[in-house]
């Protein structure tokens, strides 16, 4: 997926509405893209505002007691118990024992400080490793999706040829109704910033959008997109040039076409 396409996913991601495949692809990208991170954050106030646009209703007065009296004391008691026990015996310890304890404690202190620093350091290492592991997981999921698509029993290869707008362009796609479409194009002409390419499933009942994308600066693009459930079997794949956000039905000239046998 191109950056432009991924950027299109920011609002649905913030809304929690991405399908699992899209979400994994987007999260893999998000980890390293400051622009998309800022874009995701910019939708957070929208989520808050949506909650606050709802007509305000008052819960029953009994609920307050259920929450404040039940949760608070029950869960905090556990945390309170330790300091209380630690303090009580101190009042009955003879002064010399208390002094001995204080001396022992003083000797222990540098060691405790060292332990604490070491623990903090290790916690940092664990955090770092977990983050790296999560990133590897994400890449693995993306790779597995690709492999699973290519190995699908119903996968079909589609060769797309450049049309008069871009005779040199060429693309190949692997289409599985159950697992999506994997599409790789090369030698596509660059597009102005207000335009993008759109990949279509051409079905007997009309074209259905698969994905909107922009090629990289060498004219290459690689996409994995879902096949909409319930769509009739396509008889071709096609790429047109459209306004940047994509359109519901093709309007621009055809750049690539490939029939499905």
């Amino acid at each position: 997926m191109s950056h432009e396409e991924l950027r299109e996913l920011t609002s649905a991601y913030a809304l929690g509405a991405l399908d699992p495949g899209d979400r994994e692809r987007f999260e893999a990208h998000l980890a390293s893209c400051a622009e998309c991170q800022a874009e995701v954050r910019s939708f957070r106030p929208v989520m808050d505002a949506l909650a606050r646009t709802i007509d305000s209703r008052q819960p029953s007065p009994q609920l307050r007691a259920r929450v404040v009296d039940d949760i608070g004391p029950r869960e905090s008691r556990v945390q309170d118990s330790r300091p209380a026990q630690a303090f009580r015996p101190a009042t009955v310890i003879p002064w010399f024992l208390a002094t001995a304890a204080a001396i022992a404690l003083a000797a222990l202190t540098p060691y405790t400080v060292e332990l604490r620093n070491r623990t903090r350091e290790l916690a940092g290492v664990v955090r770092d490793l977990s983050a790296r592991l999560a990133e590897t997981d994400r890449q693995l999921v993306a790779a597995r999706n690709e492999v699973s698509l290519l190995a699908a029993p119903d996968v079909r290869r589609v060769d797309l040829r450049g049309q008069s707008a871009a005779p040199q362009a060429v693309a190949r796609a692997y289409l599985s109704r159950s697992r999506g479409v994997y599409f790789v194009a090369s030698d596509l002409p660059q597009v102005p910033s207000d335009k993008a390419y759109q990949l279509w499933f051409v079905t007997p009942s009309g074209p259905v959008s698969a994905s909107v994308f922009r090629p990289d600066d060498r004219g290459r693009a690689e996409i994995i997109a879902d096949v909409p459930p319930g769509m009739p079997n396509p008889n071709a794949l096609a790429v047109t040039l459209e306004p940047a956000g994509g359109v519901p039905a093709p309007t621009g000239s055809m750049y690539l076409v490939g029939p499905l046998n």
Partner: protein
Amino acid sequence: METPLSDGDALAAAVSGDGTGLATLYDRYSRVVYSLALRIVQEQAEAEDVVQEVFAQMFRQSERYDSRRGSVSSWLLTIARTRAIDHVRARKRLPNGRFGREPEAAAENVPDPRANQESQTLTDEQVQRVRRALGDLPAEQRRALELAYYDGLSQSEIAERLKEPLGTVKSRIRAAMMRLRDSLELDKRVKEPQAR
């Protein structure tokens, strides 16, 4: 006159066992949390269960609260929405996977180094503007957005429900979210990535 506790201080107080911290947060947010839960689960007793779960989860996971990721109130609303949707999905025996895996909604996972609570609290006027913008959305955009926000459906689930192509649903949701964001008229600093 005493200065009121900030949300962050109230949360810290609640966790340290000070009952007033929890009471403060409850009095401030139970109404909006309950209203959201009720809108999603549509049933009073169940919505109250959700409220209780939300505050219990806040209590248990307070160490996971990170003020850089947003205010206490948006954290509570995120938990509330997730919990309420889980209730509905459990009732309808729909798979919980998408929400079950990560309890916080996606936007919460991206910390904002510049954020502080004040800058993120929405004004009543901003909420009014979003309410108006929501009312002005084309019906089909609003429908798709509501299915995502209140019913927790994914884009392809929405496409299936509305018998519309997935691409159409995706662009409707995006258009709706952009319009609502525009209606907030956030300042540029928040809305756009920082220039390097």
